[in-house]
């Protein structure tokens, strides 16, 4: 699944990934790739601007981490982000259900 298919859903995926645990950009990309069994091939360049947008919107917060000897920007979900994720999950479930009814998915 390429980046175009994910258009509009990247922020949702990042929020969902951060709901599990905090992480830096590269780790989040890897996490999404592994969780999708390699099906998600993110345009890696789009992940960082998306994380910055989420932070600007108050949905994630970040800090520098130097634990591994290399400076990494680690992101975590905020309370506002968690609330938004819950809403997006409900919207997604409703969309899947509706589309399933129309196309006749079992």
């Amino acid at each position, binding site marked *: 699944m390429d980046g175009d298919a994910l258009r509009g859903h990247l922020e949702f995926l990042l929020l969902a990934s951060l709901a599990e645990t905090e992480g830096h*950009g*590269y780790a989040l990309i890897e996490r999404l790739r592994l969780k999708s069994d390699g099906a998600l091939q993110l345009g890696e*360049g789009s992940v*960082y601007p998306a994380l910055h947008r989420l932070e*600007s919107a*108050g949905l994630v*917060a970040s800090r520098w981490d130097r634990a591994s000897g290399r400076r990494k920007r680690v992101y975590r979900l905020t309370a506002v982000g968690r609330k938004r994720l819950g809403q997006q999950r409900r919207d997604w479930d409703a969309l899947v259900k509706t589309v399933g009814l129309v196309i006749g998915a079992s």
Partner: protein
Amino acid sequence: MTDSDRYLRELRSLLPRHRRRRIIVELRSHLDEGVAAEMAQGVEREEAERRTIARLGSPHRLAAQFKAGANDDATTKLAMTPLVLVDAQGQELGRCSIASAAEFLREPDHSVDLGPVGYFRIVEVRNGDPVFLVAEPAERPEWPYEIVIRKDGIERRRAFIGGECSYSVGDRVKWPPERGQTPVDHEVVAVRPAADERRTAIVIERVA
């Protein structure tokens, strides 16, 4: 100079000055990790760099995405700028978290939770540096106390607070107690029924 260096140098030249440092450090880390992962699979360094850079996309496209995000709406400005809550007279009430800033613009009447200080309602956003949010204490009927600051003989209500308070005249308190500010010693100068006669007013004055 490596390909990663050249990539980052070009990207840096395309980014807004005030955002360069963070983005470049962040992407340097990404490139280092990506190259290391490729090399761990047996890929030569040069090829590992080429693959990692290719996955990030061109510097022009990446810079454009960062710029587009920055221009999305005014909330970005709020996210990067200290937010100072002031009352109608311009007196500082407190500072609020960056994380919740976006909500203020979307909901002008949003109550700002200043933790132990109480709740405020935003009545105006004054863009600038810092951004000032004009606020007034929001009604919290269930909270039994209000903090009143006396300065030059003039009293101003600052916050409603919940929980149990056991302040007596002469007690020292730190104000504002909110994170991100420098608390200043105040002394409780009066504990009396509040103007609404439902609450207890705790009147404090800055210690000289």
